[in-house]
């Protein structure tokens, strides 16, 4: 079935810690090859929505269909996490290994690859992102832009079908932002990109939604 959506969120309700609902009866759909931008006021749950899709936040009501199956229990999300790559807002949360090569190889190792295969995959992914020679660099000595790229490499090394990117450009300078933009434009993956940066979203995604009051609204940028 080529038309089956990768992600189909049907009338889903969910909240985060505080009890206030982040999504109420919201629906959303991501098709293969689609790139969707997500914007909206702070605290409206854009990050929570991404975390919901990989099972880090529980669903309170509605149906969550990912890769053609219903996902409810934590066990359902094991496969989802292998096929969806989530880039966290703060790269320091994601890069926990001391060196670059170990961090990029972490995902492939968890997928059951041998140490040699994991090393080859990690090296190839770093090369793909223009990070040749970064293998032995120590992560706490990298710049913010370099950390973001290494975090992205860590996700791409798992060969996911879908990318969820939480503010991939936040806190980066112009050069780093330009580099991320070019890399994302060249990737074939379906993706959901959370950002407040209009120029960046325009360059990377096909359509943009605004998450506000628990619902997704098609977003039209104001005339400049």
């Amino acid at each position, binding site marked *: 079935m080529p038309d089956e959506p990768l992600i189909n969120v049907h009338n889903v309700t969910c909240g985060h810690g505080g009890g206030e609902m982040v999504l109420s009866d919201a629906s959303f759909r991501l098709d293969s090859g689609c790139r969707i931008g997500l914007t909206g006021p702070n605290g409206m749950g854009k990050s929570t929505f991404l*975390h919901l899709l*990989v099972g*880090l936040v529980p669903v309170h009501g509605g149906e969550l269909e990912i890769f053609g199956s219903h996902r409810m229990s934590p066990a359902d999300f*094991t496969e989802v*996490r*292998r096929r*969806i*790559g*989530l880039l*966290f807002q*703060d790269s*320091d*949360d*994601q*890069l*926990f*290994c*001391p*060196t670059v*090569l*170990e961090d990029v*190889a*972490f*995902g492939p*190792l*968890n*997928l059951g690859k041998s*140490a040699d295969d*994991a*090393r080859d995959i990690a090296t190839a992914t770093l090369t793909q992102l223009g990070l040749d020679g970064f*293998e*032995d660099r*120590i*992560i*706490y*000595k990298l710049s913010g832009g370099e950390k973001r790229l290494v975090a992205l490499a*860590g*996700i791409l090394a*798992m060969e996911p079908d879908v990318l969820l990117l939480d503010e991939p450009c936040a806190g980066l300078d112009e050069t780093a932002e330009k580099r991320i933009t070019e890399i994302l434009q060249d990737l074939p993956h379906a993706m959901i990109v959370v950002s407040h940066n209009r120029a960046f979203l325009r360059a990377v995604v096909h359509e943009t939604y605004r998450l506000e009051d628990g619902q997704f609204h098609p977003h039209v940028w104001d005339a400049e």
Partner: protein
Amino acid sequence: MILEPDANPKHSIVTSVDPRIRIIAAMVFSIVIVLGGKSAILAVLVALVVAAFAQVRIWALVMRLAPLNLLMLVLVITLPFSVPGESMFLLGPLSYSFEGFGQAIVTALKGNTIVIMLTALVATIEPVQLGHALERLYVPQKLSRLFLFTVRYFGVIDSEYNRLSRAMMMRGFRPRLNLHTLRSYAYLSGMLLVHALDRSERILDAMRCRGFDGRFHSFDPNPHSISWNDGCFVIMLGGWTAVLLNIDYGSW
């Protein structure tokens, strides 16, 4: 603030030796020193020579030796009063003995020798490499991982601390000896703890997203094979250690 080793990582004869060998060598050498006595002066010289070859930064070495020798000074002052022997001088009813003085000096020399050798061999290892070396020496994974996590997040927590304390200073906070200062520092440390806890949850979430199921898979980022240089180092230091052992226990 970033954790840095005590010598420039540029390769010297000592710092190019496999970290595992340096850790074991430092341990064996320390045990020999602790057990010895007569060889104390020669041992200090051996340790200093190794430190010189390792190109340890003088200042780093001084900073490590200073607190140790403060403690040793207390020992030199107090120990001789409790050791019987020929009196050097009398302080009221107390006698300061030559024997006690000798023992205190030997102890101080041994302490300095071990710290100099540890500085030269272990403190010159890049912290990340030290963690990997411990892992490869079969130190329990919980401990070596804890060490590597500490190395990784030391700078993150430190910059969080700096951010918070700078924000306090910007609003006119000056530490004084009063309740307000104590309370503010308590809030600061509480906040650091809460932030660190939140971050640890996010790190675990991120690890789960990449398929982590509670087990770390062994992965050696740069497999190290023993080289000629390593062998020479073992022979040299082993030889000198044997000389020290012989002075203490041998027939020379």
